[in-house]
């Protein structure tokens, strides 16, 4: 930890409450480690060109037939990330810490502007330090080696929450959320509520997932939801909303945002790139994996109410779009029920893979980039949409969207948890 990144020494500058429960919340920082790249420039280049980072990977394990699956990996060396605790980091935790540091750097707090008691960490991950657990199990059972004293600390689901809070000296609420593919969307939304409610001024939010390890890849493969990479063009494996869709690519990465009450951001003269305007979460309450279009539609309508918007005011929708047969059918139905075929839709998991616990945060950032550029990223690999889906798909190439003001991002999870976030341009 660098001394100038710690909040521990600062004084309170304001403590008033509350902010309106309907107030937009400012976004003042972004950071990420993704298969599309680690910088905004690299991310934008791939996103708006629809350039896929999905690749084939073959796994050969003793006693088992080799399997080939689709993955979207990050170029990232976890060993280079230094933790404030000095303890070893799970790969996902290292990604989370790197993303959070970039986001906080961009938010540009001077140390006197932050009251550590009013700063929180809200972070999502589907399975936490599963890669470390996988490695520990292989070491114990396969190599008959003892485990390290820090095994528990690298595996625990809130490891990233702890390292981020420790790095910045955060003293407000620091909470991990585990609701599968909706984890980081829920973390972001709950932080937004905490800021609106006046409990926090600032929150470091987002999520991570890193499960490209033998045990986890084998587990996902067994579930038969991963796309088989086509031999001539593995990067086209994931084809959301396509008639020939066949599942997703297992991704990894982390994405962080800095959220801040508008008054706090204004007082310190921060550059506010966008706002979070609405959030809702609910549960299908009907099945562990089979999604319910009615539950999804209720979540989207609730998020619109939360933002005080009519469906017609949303100019872009980033779908959950996992490219599974049942998942896309339910979502096409729920989007149509709420928006008809008026809102342009794209599904970017085709290029960055399914980032699980990081997915909601990465796809919110996709929505933010669309707002910034006033342009909509295409759905890659969508030559022929499923004939049953009556939606306006952005496909082939990016689409200009002059006047775009609001963008919505869906995250729907195993367990039935739905989370919907709505971002908007800054009011001027």
């Amino acid at each position, binding site marked *: 930890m660098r001394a100038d990144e710690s909040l521990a020494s600062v004084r309170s500058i304001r403590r008033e409450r509350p902010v309106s429960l309907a107030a937009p919340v400012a976004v003042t920082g972004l950071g990420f480690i993704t298969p599309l790249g680690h910088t905004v420039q690299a991310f934008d280049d791939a996103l708006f060109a629809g350039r896929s980072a999905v690749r084939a990977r073959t796994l050969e394990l003793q006693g088992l037939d080799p399997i080939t699956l689709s993955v979207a990996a990050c170029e990232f060396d976890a060993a280079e990330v230094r*933790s404030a*605790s*000095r*303890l070893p980091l799970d790969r996902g935790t290292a990604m989370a810490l790197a993303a959070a540091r970039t986001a906080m750097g961009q938010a540009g707090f001077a140390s006197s502007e932050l009251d550590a008691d009013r700063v929180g960490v809200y972070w999502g991950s589907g399975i936490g330090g599963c890669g470390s657990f996988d490695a520990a199990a292989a070491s114990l059972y396969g190599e*008959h080696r003892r485990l*390290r*004293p820090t095994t528990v*600390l690298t595996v625990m689901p809130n490891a990233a929450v702890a390292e981020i809070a420790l790095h910045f000296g955060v003293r407000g609420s620091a909470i991990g959320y585990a609701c599968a593919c909706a984890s980081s969307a829920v973390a972001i939304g709950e932080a937004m509520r905490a800021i609106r409610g006046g409990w926090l001024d600032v929150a470091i939010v987002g999520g991570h997932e890193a499960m490209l390890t033998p045990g986890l890849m084998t587990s996902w493969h067994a579930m038969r939801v991963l796309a088989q990479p086509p031999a001539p063009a593995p990067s086209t494996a994931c084809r959301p909303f396509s008639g020939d869709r066949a599942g997703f690519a297992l991704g990894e990465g982390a994405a962080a945002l800095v959220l801040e009450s508008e008054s706090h951001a204004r007082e310190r003269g921060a550059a506010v790139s966008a706002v979070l305007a609405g959030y809702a979460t609910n549960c299908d309450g009907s099945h562990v994996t089979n999604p319910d279009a009615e539950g999804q539609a209720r979540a989207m309508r609730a998020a619109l109410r939360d933002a005080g918007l009519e469906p017609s005011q949303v100019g872009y929708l980033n779908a959950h779009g996992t490219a599974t047969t049942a998942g896309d059918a339910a979502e096409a139905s729920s989007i149509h029920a709420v928006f008809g075929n008026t809102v342009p839709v794209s599904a970017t998991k085709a290029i960055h893979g399914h980032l699980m616990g990081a997915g909601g945060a990465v796809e919110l950032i996709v929505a933010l980039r669309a707002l910034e550029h006033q342009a909509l990223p295409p759905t890659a690999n969508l030559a022929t949409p499923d004939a049953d889906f009556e939606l306006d798909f952005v496909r082939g190439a990016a689409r200009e969207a002059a006047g775009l003001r609001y963008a919505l991002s869906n995250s729907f999870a195993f367990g039935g948890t739905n989370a919907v976030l709505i971002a908007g341009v800054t009011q001027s």
Partner: protein
Amino acid sequence: MTSATFDTVARILLTEFHLDAARVTPATPLLDLDLDSLALMEFVFAVEDAFKLRIPQERLDPREAGITLQRLCEVIDQMVAAPAGAKAGVA
């Protein structure tokens, strides 16, 4: 203390624990490595795994003041040189 032993120990501190090189000298006491008790235990495990041995608690209690990296390396060298039976319990 052989230089190879110290180099291995130093590499663990620099790469796994991200310590500044200036801090990692033979004369540095374990308690001055800027590692808390948990990280120090993790470090000792890493060293033991690297040399495939177990250092008996009584030969290296990090809570005892004054044990330096040089002393750690000497203990490692003595154990590596000892007959195989002295390395009991190594997994």
